[in-house]
């Protein structure tokens, strides 16, 4: 059944408006509107990816809902991760979000909080890497009146008290000094803490979410992070993929930030096709944060009208031909070639968006590429069956 209108809701399910199919600018109906974006994702689908079993309606609805929460994604892996977040929101277990800097760990932490029964209570965030070691304990646990020289006469409540009933987000947990790790572990386990200079233990009810861009397991092995705290935090573990592994998100993010800064700066600028291709082809080591900064800079000081590829930062224009293939062990050569082909074809499709341009970049005939894709899909289906 084709719906003549689709409701648009925010992340709480509250109605924002309706999209009437016949009013859409293309005149092709809004089911096509939903499918068109899906087609982009499907073309970008890496061969062998089994997580694309999602209907156009579901994808359309889910991505719109997430957009209201500030999360812009069409990536199947991210959508799976968001499903995991919504399941994690229903319980109080500690969550550990891992991933490179700038991938959106904080947004996911907020999503877990706002989707949880604690949504009405506070979401308190503390960046363990941004606060000096000497102040960290008082920031976390607070202090009693006159606890030390220069302390407030009335004492001060820390993040633990502020987050009581809500969620405490411990960002960059890998930077927490070893001495404090013991105290934090105890406080998480017992949901109890003592202000500095006080004797009275205070009971709290907090849901903990931690995030790091470090390899905590490696830090444990090196003796730089307590193993018991690691296991305490690592109850529900989530890995947020870097932007280079979800290239289908790059253009929607560019358009999102373009709209955001157009509104903020009061100007109207757009990107040429080649500029967009460059943006999509770049590896974005700084992830979404770097992408936002580049778009903000171009919207602020870029030329009026069309932003061409020549206006992009120089690092985006350098073609990275450096190849990095890591070999971990011996496997049949045919299997290794097959894996490499899948990776290269997936990368080319994600970068160029369609078969003919991907084939051109890979220097193969489009029919050869189509044939390989069909074979990969057939093999994936056989594996699933």
């Amino acid at each position, binding site marked *: 059944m084709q719906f003549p209108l689709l409701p648009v809701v925010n992340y709480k399910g509250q109605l924002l408006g*309706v999209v009437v*199919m016949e009013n859409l600018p293309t005149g092709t109906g809004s089911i096509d509107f939903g499918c068109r974006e899906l087609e982009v994702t499907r073309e970008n689908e890496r061969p062998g990816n089994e997580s694309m079993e999602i209907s156009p309606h579901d994808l359309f609805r889910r991505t719109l809902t997430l957009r209201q929460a500030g999360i812009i994604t069409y990536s199947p892996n991210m959508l799976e991760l968001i499903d995991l977040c919504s399941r994690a929101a229903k319980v109080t277990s500690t969550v550990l979000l891992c991933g490179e800097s700038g991938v959106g760990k904080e947004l996911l932490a907020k999503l877990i909080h706002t989707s949880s029964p604690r949504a009405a209570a506070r979401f308190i965030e503390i960046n363990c890497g941004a606060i000096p070691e000497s102040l960290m304990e008082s920031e976390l646990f607070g202090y009693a009146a006159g606890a030390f020289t220069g302390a407030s006469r009335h004492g001060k409540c820390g993040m633990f008290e502020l987050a009581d009933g809500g969620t405490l987000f411990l960002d960059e947990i890998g930077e927490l000094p070893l001495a404090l790790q013991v105290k934090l572990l105890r406080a998480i386990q017992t949901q109890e803490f003592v202000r500095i200079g006080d004797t009275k233990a205070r009971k709290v009810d907090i849901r903990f979410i931690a995030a790091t861009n470090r390899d905590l397991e490696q830090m444990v092995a090196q003796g730089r992070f307590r193993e018991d705290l690691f296991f305490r935090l690592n109850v529900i573990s989530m890995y947020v993929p870097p932007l280079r592994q979800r290239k289908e998100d790059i253009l929607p993010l560019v358009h999102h930030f373009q709209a955001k800064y157009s509104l903020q700066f009061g100007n109207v600028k757009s990107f040429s096709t080649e500029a967009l291709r460059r943006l999509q082809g770049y590896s974005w080591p700084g992830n979404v944060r770097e992408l936002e900064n580049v778009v903000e800079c171009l919207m602020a000081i870029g030329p009026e009208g069309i932003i061409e590829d020549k206006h992009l930062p120089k690092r985006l224009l350098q073609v990275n031909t450096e190849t990095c293939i890591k070999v971990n062990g011996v496997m049949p050569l045919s299997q290794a070639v097959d894996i490499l082909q899948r990776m290269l074809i997936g990368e080319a499709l994600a970068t160029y968006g369609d078969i003919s341009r991907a084939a051109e970049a890979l220097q193969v005939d489009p029919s050869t590429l189509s044939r390989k894709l069909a074979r990969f899909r057939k093999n994936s289906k056989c594996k699933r069956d």
Partner: protein
Amino acid sequence: MIFAQEVMTTDFPALSAETPVAEVLQWFEKTGLPGLPIVDAKRKLLGVVLKELSLNKTPGDTPVGK
């Protein structure tokens, strides 16, 4: 890429599940929309009533949610 917020309509009544079908039909006439969303007191979406399906119902005092 076009986003839904750019093409969505916000000019329509927020009907509740208790709105009589006869009233819903009047709203279809007034707005010209092919369907109308049904929300609760917190504006949470409950469903959508479609014009073509509502026309099959006898206009009366039957609430739209029944």
